[in-house]
């Protein structure tokens, strides 16, 4: 068994008077492809923000690559793909190439320029997500799914060890979701990138995923995808807080 690269112990978080996360503990091992599922308001985005160091929990302990979150400095090891819809202005005047290249900003470091040969890395990153033909297009000219792939390329260019994604399938047509997961699967297997994604959409969870965690303030289930497929309807209802039918 490999060392856990993410470890949360008894993490709780509240916004003013609302308890959002209650006593969360879980581990992610290198090479996992984990989907964190939860209905709206279950604390998924908060959990991601805590993981990324954007929010501090009131209690609990978080370790990234064995180091406490507060002192963890290698942020470039974690590639973040924000939720497309709210993070960016689709009229932004930038080409795909410029957007992907900007993923190197932190890695190159303050007071230094991005080297000229970065364009090769841009091409590699775009190839990995199947978008190499679009490098000269303006980002606003692409479809939602294509933009999402570009944002993944922007994270990949810094060669992260973990890819963290917030609702990555929002804005992708239903028929393209499977090929999107196929692409993530090949990143996971071929480049050995650990993937964590959060989604509210139980239906889109693909067989490409290795692990599933069900979140609603607290972790209701965490295990292999196969185990998740076998949990009962009552357990699902209890987790989601209201009746949702499981679709196979």
């Amino acid at each position, binding site marked *: 068994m490999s060392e856990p690269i993410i470890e949360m112990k008894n993490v709780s978080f509240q916004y003013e008077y609302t308890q959002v996360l209650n006593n969360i503990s879980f581990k992610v091992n290198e090479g996992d492809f984990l989907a964190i599922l939860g209905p709206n308001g279950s604390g998924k985005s908060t959990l991601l923000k805590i993981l*990324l*160091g*954007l929010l501090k929990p009131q209690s609990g302990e978080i370790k990234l690559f064995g180091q406490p979150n507060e002192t963890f*400095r290698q*942020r*470039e090891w*974690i590639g*973040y793909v*924000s939720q497309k819809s709210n*993070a*960016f*202005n689709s*009229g*932004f*005047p*930038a*080409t795909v*190439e*410029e*957007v992907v290249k*900007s*993923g*190197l*900003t*932190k890695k*190159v470091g*303050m*007071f230094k*320029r*991005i080297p000229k040969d970065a364009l090769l890395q841009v091409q590699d990153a775009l190839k990995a997500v199947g978008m190499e033909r679009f490098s*000269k297009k*303006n980002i606003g000219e692409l479809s939602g799914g294509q933009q999402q792939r570009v944002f993944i390329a*922007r994270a990949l260019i*810094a060669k992260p060890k973990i890819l963290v994604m917030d609702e990555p399938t929002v804005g992708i047509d239903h028929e393209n979701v499977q090929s999107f997961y196929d692409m993530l699967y090949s990143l996971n297997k071929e480049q050995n990138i650990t993937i964590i994604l959060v989604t509210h959409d139980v239906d889109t969870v693909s067989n490409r995923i290795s692990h599933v965690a069900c979140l609603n303030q607290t972790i209701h289930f965490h295990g292999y995808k196969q185990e998740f497929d076998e949990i009962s309807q009552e357990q699902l209802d209890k987790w989601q807080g209201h009746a949702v039918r499981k679709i196979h």
Partner: protein
Amino acid sequence: MIDAIINYEFLQNAFFSGLLIGIIAPLLGVFIVVRRMSLIADALSHVTLAGIAGSLYLSQTFTVLALINPIYLGIVASVSGSILIERLRTLYKHYEELAIPIIMSGGIGLSAIFISLASGFNTDIMSYLFGSVSAVSRQDLWVVIAITIVVFLFLYTFFKEMFVLSFDEEFAKASGLPAKTIHLLFMVVVALVIAASMRIVGILLVSSLITLPVAASMRIAKGFKQTILFSILFGEAAVILGLVSAFYLNLAPGGTIVVTSILILLIVILGKKAAMKMKAERV
């Protein structure tokens, strides 16, 4: 005009200041526009006016202070305004735009008090409101040169960080960039550029040179660097044509520069429409 520039120092001051502002205002303007902060530039320009009016009033009351260029107090007011806006924006997290009317009306209110204390409008204040070809002093030109250097240093150092921050703030924060610090520095630089620009285009029209060339550029540019390039080209064209016509027609340069910018914008919008139509017909 070239003869006149060689012969008259005041024209040199106005012309060189104009050329520099024609670069730095649209250059920063690209970041301001894509970050949807165009109105902040307007609010800051009105705060700058409060500083200028305050300085003019003080120099009337205490003659010793008459030697001090009003632009300095304008800069102080503008920079303080930019920091105040940031404080207010964090205070009203869900109503970030509320900071703009608060600061803007505060600026105009203070200006009104200082102007009436100084017993009304005079030509001095008019030249600050709408710009002037003749009122730019050598000292003003030095201030503009200094601010231009600051802008270039800032963008030379933080260009890639500013790009990430403008495109996707959440990503910038998640990748561990000091987003807050860079943003605050940016606001201070914006305040400086506004103070620098007001001598030529005037306080009421400063935001035009920051936004109009960018608006035109975004219609036709491909990518971010090209957007910057075209914005500067349009900015320079507006400043040069505006200053020349202001000089010959004896008009306030703020007016001629803004009207030229709007004409450029119209030509670009209509030209692009025509080009699209021709392309569609050919297919």
